[in-house]
C-alpha cells in the first residue's frame, strides 16, 4: 500500500485508527503490528515472511548479544550483520552482481528475476542500527518481543523511511500516549506531505518524464527537465517522510525530521546534513566513524569518504549509476574539504547556494538516468555538445506550462511558507484549517484522477 492512495487514506486509515484508538493499553501494540503486517502484505503477501523473519532474528540476536560471553560477542555481531546483509544482498543486489560479473568476463549468468521486497533497504538498516547499538552498549536490547515488533515493523516508516533508530524512540516504545491534538499534529504533517507528493511531485514527474523521453533537446529544455526532477525528488521523498512522521504522531510516536530544507544549503556537505538525514547519519555512525572517520591519515580519510559514498549510492539502487552518483558526492565532499573550503566561505550566501544547487542538479542527472549513455547524453544536452540548440518551441512549451508549478515549488522548498502557516495557526485558525481542507481536497482530486502512482522511493 502507498500512503498517497484513496484506498490507504479513506479505507485502511479510518478502520485502523478507529480500532487503534478504541483498543486500550498494550492492546494498541497488537493492533499496530497486525495493521502493519496487513499494510505490508497488501499486494505482495509473499515477502511479509522476510519482514517477520528479520524482526524475529534481530530480536533474538539482540538478546543473545547481551547474554553471550564477551569473547563471542564480536562473532555474534558479525554473524547477525552478515545474515542481514545477505538477505538484503540476495534480494536487492544478486541480479546486479551477476550481471556485473558477467559483463566483466563477457559471459551471461542467468538468474531468477526477483522483485524487490518493499522497504527491505529501510527495515534492514533499521534493524542493523539496533544490533550495532546493542553491540556497542549504546542501548539495552528490547526484552519484549511485541515491543520490538512495533519498532521493527510499524507501517509509518516501514516502507520508505525515515530510518528510525531504536535509541531515539526507546522510551516511546514503552509509552506512546495518543491525544486529539497530537493526532492533529500528525494530520498537519500528513496533509502537507500528501500535498507535496500528489500535487507537486507527481506533476513535476510528468514534465521530467516528457523531456527525458524526447529524442533530442535544446540546452534550456534539459535544464528545465532536471530542475523539474530536482524539485520532484525533493517533494516526493520529503512528502513521504512528512506523511510517515505524521502517521507516527497519530500513533503516538515522534520521529526525527528527515529533511531540513536541503535546497537552501550553502555547500554540498551541508546539503547532506539536511537531505535524508536518517540515512546520512546512519552511514556516518555505522560506517564512516567505525572506519576512523576523519581522525586518521589523509589517504585513509579520503578512502573512508569514498567508501561511504560509494555505498550510499549503491544503497539507493542496484545499478552502477547510483554508485557513480555516490562517488560523485564523495569527490565533491573531498573537493570542498581540501580545496574549495576557504574559497566558498568567502563568497556571498546566494553564490554558495547557487553552487550547491548546481552540484545537486548535476547529481540528479546521475540519479535519474540509469544508463551511462543516458547520463552522457543528458549532461551533453545540458552543456551543449549533444543539444539540438539553445532553446526551441519545446523549451517555450515546458516553460509556459510549468512556470506556475516551478514558482510554487521554489517557494515551498524554503521555510518561509511554513513559518507563515505556523503563525496563521495561532492568529487565524479558521483560515489555517481552510487551507488544510483545500489541500486535502485537491490531493484527493489528484488521487481520484490518477488512481495509482507509486512512490519513487518505494523500491529502494
Amino acid at each position, binding site marked *: 500500500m502507498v500512503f498517497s*492512495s484513496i484506498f490507504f487514506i479513506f479505507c485502511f486509515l479510518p478502520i485502523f485508527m478507529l480500532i487503534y484508538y478504541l483498543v486500550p493499553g498494550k492492546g494498541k501494540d497488537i493492533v499496530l503490528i497486525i495493521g502493519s503486517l496487513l499494510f505490508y502484505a*497488501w499486494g505482495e503477501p*509473499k515477502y511479509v515472511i522476510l519482514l517477520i523473519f528479520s524482526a524475529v532474528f534481530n530480536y533474538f540476536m539482540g538478546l543473545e548479544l547481551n547474554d553471550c560471553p564477551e569473547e563471542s560477542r564480536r562473532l555474534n555481531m558479525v554473524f547477525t550483520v552478515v545474515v542481514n546483509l545477505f538477505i538484503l544482498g540476495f534480494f536487492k543486489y544478486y541480479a546486479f552482481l551477476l550481471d556485473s560479473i558477467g559483463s566483466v568476463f563477457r559471459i551471461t549468468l542467468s538468474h531468477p528475476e526477483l522483485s524487490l521486497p518493499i522497504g527491505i533497504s529501510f527495515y534492514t538498516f533499521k534493524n542493523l542500527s539496533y544490533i550495532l547499538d546493542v553491540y556497542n552498549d549504546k542501548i539495552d536490547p528490547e526484552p519484549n518481543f511485541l515491543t520490538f515488533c512495533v519498532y521493527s515493523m510499524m507501517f509509518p516508516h516501514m516502507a520508505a523511511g525515515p530510518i528510525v533508530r531504536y535509541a531515539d524512540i526507546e522510551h516511546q516504545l514503552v509509552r506512546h500516549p495518543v491525544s486529539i491534538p497530537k493526532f*492533529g*499534529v*500528525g494530520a498537519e504533517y500528513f496533509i502537507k506531505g500528501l500535498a507535496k507528493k500528489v500535487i507537486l511531485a507527481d506533476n513535476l514527474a510528468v514534465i521530467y518524464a516528457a523531456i527525458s523521453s524526447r529524442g533530442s533537446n535544446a540546452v534550456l529544455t534539459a535544464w528545465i527537465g532536471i530542475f523539474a526532477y530536482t524539485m520532484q525528488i525533493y517533494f516526493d521523498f520529503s512528502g513521504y517522510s512528512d506523511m510517515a512522521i505524521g502517521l507516527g504522531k497519530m500513533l503516538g510516536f515522534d520521529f526525527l525530521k528527515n529533511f531540513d530544507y536541503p535546497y537552501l544549503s550553502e555547500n554540498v556537505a551541508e546539503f547532506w546534513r539536511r537531505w535524508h538525514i536518517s540515512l546520512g547519519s546512519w552511514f556516518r555512525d555505522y560506517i564512516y566513524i567505525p572506519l576512523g572517520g576523519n581522525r586518521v591519515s589523509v589517504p585513509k580519510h579520503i578512502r573512508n569518504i569514498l567508501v561511504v559514498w560509494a555505498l550510499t549510492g549503491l544503497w539507493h539502487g542496484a545499478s552502477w549509476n547510483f554508485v557513480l552518483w555516490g562517488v560523485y558526492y564523495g569527490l565533491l565532499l573531498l573537493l570542498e574539504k581540501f580545496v574549495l573550503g576557504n574559497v566558498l566561505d568567502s563568497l556571498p550566501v546566494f553564490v554558495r547556494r547557487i553552487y550547491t544547487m548546481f552540484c545537486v542538479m548535476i547529481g540528479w542527472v546521475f540519479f535519474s538516468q540509469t544508463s551511462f549513455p543516458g547520463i552522457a547524453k543528458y549532461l551533453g544536452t545540458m552543456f551543449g555538445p549533444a543539444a539540438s540548440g539553445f532553446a526551441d518551441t519545446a523549451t517555450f512549451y515546458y516553460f*509556459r506550462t510549468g512556470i506556475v508549478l516551478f514558482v510554487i515549488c521554489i517557494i515551498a522548498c524554503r521555510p518561509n511558507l511554513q513559518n507563515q502557516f505556523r503563525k496563521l495557526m495561532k492568529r487565524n485558525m479558521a483560515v489555517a484549517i481552510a487551507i488544510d481542507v483545500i489541500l*486535502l481536497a485537491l490531493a484527493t482530486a489528484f488521487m481520484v484522477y490518477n488512481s495509482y502512482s507509486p512512490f519513487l522511493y518505494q523500491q529502494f
Partner: protein
Amino acid sequence: MAKRSNKPFFNKLGTFFFAVILIVFLINLILPDRSFSDKENRVLSSFPAVNLAQMASGRQEPKYETYVNDQFFLRDFWITLKAGADRLMGKVENNGVWLCKDGYLMENFTAPTPDRLEANIAAIDAFSDRHPELSKSMIIVPNAVNIMSSRLPAGALTVDQNSYLDEVKNSVKEHGVSFIDLRETLSNHSLERIYYKTDHHWTTLGAYYGYLASADQLGLDTSILTYDQLPVSDSFQGTLSAKSGFRSGEKEEMYVFLPRNDTAPEYVVNYVDDRTRVASFYQTDRLETRDKYAMFLNGNHAQVKINTPTADDRTLLIFKDSYANCFVPFLGPHYRNIILIDPRYYYGNIEELIAAEGVSEILYLYNANTFFLDTSLELTLAASGEESAITDAAESTPADGAAAADTTATEPSTSDTAAEGTSTETTEGSTGTEGTETTEGSTESYDSSSDDAGYDESYDYDYDSSYDESYDESYDYDLDYDYDYSYEEDYSGY
C-alpha cells in the same frame, strides 16, 4: 499579552481529519455502487469477489484499490476539480488530449513503433497480393491534431502524422491499393466544423467532405442524391472532454445528413452479431445516452451488413473503425451490399466471408490515431488458420474468464493510448464476460473511450421497439427538429 497557543488548531484539525476519513469511508460504504460512469463513458469496477488464493498471490488487491477509486463518492466532482487545478497551473494537455483554441479538444497522435507499423503494412500488403481480383481502396482519415494544428496551444509538442501516412500510402500503393488522401480536402475545410470539439471523431460534415473527395477513386456518382443537414442533438459531450477533464461541462451540436426524401433508397442494416435488422443507419435512442456518436450505425459492431436495392451490383467490404460509422451512410446508395468488419471485435474467417458474400471491392476506413496503433487488423487479414487459435485463446472457460481477461488486458495497455483503445476491449468482448467483468482491464481508472462502452452496451439493448420485420417505408426519425434548412445555409457562418 499571553502567548497564543496552536493547540486549538491541532485540536480542530485532528478532529476534522479523523472525522473526514471516517465519514468518507462510511459514505463510500453506504452509497450504492454505480455501474457506469457517464462522464468517463466506461463501466466502473464492481466489488471484487473475495478470493484468498488470488489475494495470496497479490493479484486481487489492486482490484480493490481500483474499485474504491472507481466508486469514490462524488467521483465526477473530484475529476472536475483536478482538471480545474490543472488549468490554473497552466496545463494544456491531459491524458493525451490538448486544450486547443476555439473550444477544440484534440487527441494527441501516438506514433507507432516501427515494428507495429511494419506489421500492419505487411499484413495489408500480403492481403493485397492474395487478392489481385478485388479492387482495393484505403482511407486513413487524418485527425484534428493534424488538420487543425494551427489551433493547438502555443508550442504544443505533437508527432506529425504525415510522415506515417505517407509511408503507408507509398507502401500500399505498390500493392494495388488506391490510397484516398483526404488531407488536402480536410485542410481546405479546416475552418469549418469537420471535427467535434469535445470528441475524437470527425463530424458528419467532415465525413461528407471525405465522401465527396473520395468519389472519383471509389467510382461513385455523387449527383444521385441531395443531402439536407439536420441537427439531432445539441447536448453532445464527447470522449475527449471526459478523458481530459477539460471543458467537461461543454455541450455541442450533432448533425446528420439525410437524403431528400424523393431521392432516398431503402436500406436494411443488419447487425449480424446481435441478429437485428433495422431500416436506418441511425439509432436515435442512442441520443438519449452519453455516447451519442453511437447513433451512427449503433456504435461499433463486429459485423454489419447493409443491403440497398440499387441497380449497381457492387459488394463492398469495409475494414473499419468508428470513423466509418458516420461515413458509411453516404456510401449506402452506391452499393448493393456493404459489409462492415470491425477487426477489433471480429473473429471470423475473412477469406470465407469474401467468398460467400461475393465481395468485389475492399475499403480500409480508419482514422490515423486508431490505424497506427491497431493490432487487430493484422490478425483479421491473416485469415489462415491463425485466427481460430486466437478465438480459442480468447474464449477461455468462464471460470478463467476474469483471470484471462486480466492478464491479457495488461499487455496492450502500453500501446493503448489511442481513443479507440484497441485490443483491451477485443479481449474482453470475446470472453463472454461483458456486463460484469468488462472493467478488468481498466486499472487506469480513466483511460477509456466511447467505443468499448458502446460495444458493451450493444448487448443490453432492447431492440424490440425498433426491430420490425415489416418495417414501413418511412424513416423513423422521430425528432422534433425542423427539416427545413439545407446544408449550405447552415454552414455559411463557419
